């Protein structure tokens, strides 16, 4: 071998290149993921231009160009989102060959109508009927204001009966449970007196059920009257080819005219869309609407998990490092903890289902609510946010324990001796010197574990996450935190929208958006970890050692 080549091999330059290339590859992949997620989410949020396309066969339609490619026959084509499901026989999308396109333009008055059901409608506003300003011809902007006004009126009138109905529903549910309990206890009563008492309770609840029923019917008819009155207010739209179609205003969520927007209007719209996504409930089997319950569920889950796993993990780590004698027992405990960190999360899910949900939850139900168990109703035994968070807590425990141990190990023994020599007990030394010094490491490990838990899905599917929860784990109703409730979760939401949805194609941008929000959540947690660690390091800096 030539000496120059030999030297080249010996100095390992090729390995430097290879390692650099590996890093580059990883960074490129991360950039691609980030770009994909951001670009696709942007598509949902940023109002893009609506095309009016005229085809060679004389037909016209309105739609958003999504993506283009070359067809298998070698012809360029574009996929349009055309909405108008009831007219286009349910299909949201349509491939258009470029050779068929006669003309494209962007009429300013073209409207995007976001509806409560059936997705988007693209068309032109004709007139409004019923209510005030009957048959008035309005500009899109005026119509938008009318719609907002309509929604305000509708909400102020319909909200009280709607809330009343919800309260009555809850009352019915509560009464039904009381009925079950009375029935159950009556059959089981040991003394005639007790049986008599439960019988009275039973009769009371039957009476009450009747009362609630009548009350509900009254509230329902009141609500229906309001709804019918409002339903008389409609708007007539025309599709691109002139077909007229009328919708009650109450079926519309929102209208916008993207072709008539300047940059500031678009930016404002973008902000409104972001807010809506974060604050609204999902609609139409999660393919439309917002992500609020999933976001709240995720955050609540992570915090509940933190409350259980942090003290437990830190305490265990402290015992292992500070108090346990170094022997076979403590060493095998350490090995077990490390192995636990490598257990697949679905296994934790199965454990959570078996131990927490069926075992603990089932026991609680049998102990406290035997009458519900007899009637096949589960309260704690059917999955809930508490069991999910405990399962996740278990999953993150090894990380917390290891982080705690390692952080404690970095505290020099001179410092501990210094404290002990001043007459401090081991516990005082631990609390006043060692733990504060170890806190940056402990917190970093813990928050990283939290970030990991926020993205975990598999164990949740078994222990309480659902595709659509009718109530939130946190609300204004006593006791505010409802740990037994099922919940929605961003990660599960992605899975549900992306793979279980009846209209996967329509929910695709929303899947990316959900992924983006989950990523942001994890980033925020990580940045919080970095910030916290920096502050702690400054406070308990070890300079001079």
């Amino acid at each position: 071998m030539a000496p120059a080549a030999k030297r080249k091999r010996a100095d390992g330059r090729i390995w430097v290149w290879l390692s650099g290339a590996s890093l580059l590859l990883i960074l490129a992949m991360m950039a691609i993921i980030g770009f994909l997620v951001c670009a696709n989410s942007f598509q949902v949020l940023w109002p893009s231009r609506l095309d009016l396309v005229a085809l060679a066969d004389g037909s016209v339609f309105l739609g958003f160009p999504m993506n283009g490619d070359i067809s298998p026959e070698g012809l360029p084509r574009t996929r349009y989102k055309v909405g108008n499901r009831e007219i286009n026989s349910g299909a949201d999308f349509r491939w258009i060959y470029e050779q068929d396109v006669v003309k494209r333009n962007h009429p300013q008055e073209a409207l995007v109508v976001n509806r409560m059901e059936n997705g988007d409608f693209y068309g032109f506003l004709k007139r409004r009927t019923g209510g005030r300003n009957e048959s008035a011809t309005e500009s899109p902007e005026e119509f938008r204001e009318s719609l907002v006004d309509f929604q305000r009126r509708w909400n102020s009138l319909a909200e009280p009966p709607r809330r009343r109905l919800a309260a009555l529903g809850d009352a019915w549910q509560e009464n039904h449970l009381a009925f079950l309990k009375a029935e159950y206890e009556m059959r089981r009563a040991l003394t005639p007196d007790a049986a008599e008492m439960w019988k009275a309770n039973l009769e009371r609840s039957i009476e009450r059920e009747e009362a609630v029923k009548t009350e509900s019917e009254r509230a329902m008819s009141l609500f229906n009257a309001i709804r019918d009155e409002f339903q008389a207010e409609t708007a007539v739209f025309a599709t691109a080819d002139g077909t007229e179609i009328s919708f009650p205003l109450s079926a519309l969520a929102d209208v916008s005219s993207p072709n008539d927007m300047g940059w500031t209007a678009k930016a404002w719209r973008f902000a409104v869309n972001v807010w809506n996504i974060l604050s609204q409930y999902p609609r139409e089997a999660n393919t439309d609407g917002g992500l609020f319950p999933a976001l709240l569920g995720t955050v609540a889950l992570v915090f509940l998990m933190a409350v259980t796993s942090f003290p437990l993990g830190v305490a265990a780590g402290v015992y292992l490092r500070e108090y346990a004698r170094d022997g076979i027992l403590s060493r095998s405990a350490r090995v077990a903890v490390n192995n636990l960190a490598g257990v697949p999360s679905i296994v934790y899910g199965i454990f959570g289902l078996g131990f927490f949900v069926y075992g603990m939850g089932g026991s609680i139900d049998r102990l406290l609510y035997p009458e519900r168990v007899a009637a096949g109703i589960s309260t704690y035994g059917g999955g809930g946010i508490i069991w999910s968070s405990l399962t996740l807590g278990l999953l993150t425990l090894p990380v917390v324990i290891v982080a705690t141990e390692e952080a404690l190990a970095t505290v020099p023994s001179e410092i501990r001796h210094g404290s002990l020599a001043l007459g401090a007990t081991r516990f005082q030394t631990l609390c006043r010197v060692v733990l504060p010094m170890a806190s940056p490491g402990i917190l970093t490990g813990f928050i990283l574990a939290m970030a990991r838990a926020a993205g975990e899905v598999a164990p949740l599917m078994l222990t309480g996450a659902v595709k659509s929860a009718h109530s939130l784990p946190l609300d204004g109703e006593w006791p505010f935190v409802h740990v037994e409730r099922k919940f929605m979760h961003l990660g599960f939401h992605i899975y549900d929208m992306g793979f279980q949805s009846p209209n996967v194609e329509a929910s695709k941008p929303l899947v990316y958006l959900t992924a983006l929000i989950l990523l942001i959540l994890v980033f925020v947690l990580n940045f919080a970890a970095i910030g916290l660690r920096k502050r702690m390091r400054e406070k308990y800096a070890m300079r001079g050692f």
Partner: protein
Amino acid sequence: MENGDGPDTLIVEAENLDFHYGEKQALFGIGVGIRRGLATAFIGPSGCGKSTFLRCLNRMNDLVDGARVTGRLTLDGEDVNSPELDVIELRRRVGMVFQKPNPFPKSIYENVVYGLRIAGVRDRERLDAACERSLRRAALWEEVKDRLRESAMGLSGGQHQRLCIARAVAVRPEIILMDEPCSALDPRSTTKIEELITELKGDYTIVIVTHNMQQAARVSDRTVFFYEGKLMEEGETRRLFTSPGRRETEDYLTGRFG
């Protein structure tokens, strides 16, 4: 025994003290008396047991797995190794300064009052007074009085060691043990610590372990020479340095080993 070795003048008495680290015996039948109010230096080559003996005095050896002491060791006539003795109380009476300065990553103020705080002192004025008094005793007050609330980590190495002395002084111990307190410091800081020792003795009994024979000669009133776990010679510093009674002492002092 020389004159004046009455029970009043001796604060620590060891008699036939053996010490084991597991299987290994580190001290063999140590018998010595340490006098109240004087500075006593422990000298001897590395591994001779001087630090081990020092750590017997405040039972820091308890922290070592497999440590075992036999024989008699008393502080003011009380058995140091008695199971009834409160180690926490003992360590309050026998303070210690370590080889490597080990201030806590807290403010200067919190470092000084640490011993009082863990003893349950809450009274603000008492803590403030103790802080100032201790820092003055450690000749550090003038340098840090304007930044008591700042982190102690910003001080220099020599200041760190004086802070550790202030910390030990704050709990008003009877004895201050110093385990090679200057070995990690530069010459100027060393001089300061030595001056400090000279000033502190009288009020406190000082026991200093040192490798540096000049230092022992400069700061101590009495010197104990350890060799291979045994006490070789003990006496007034000037006498021991000028006319050592034993062969090994003379060899060590003249640098024939060390």
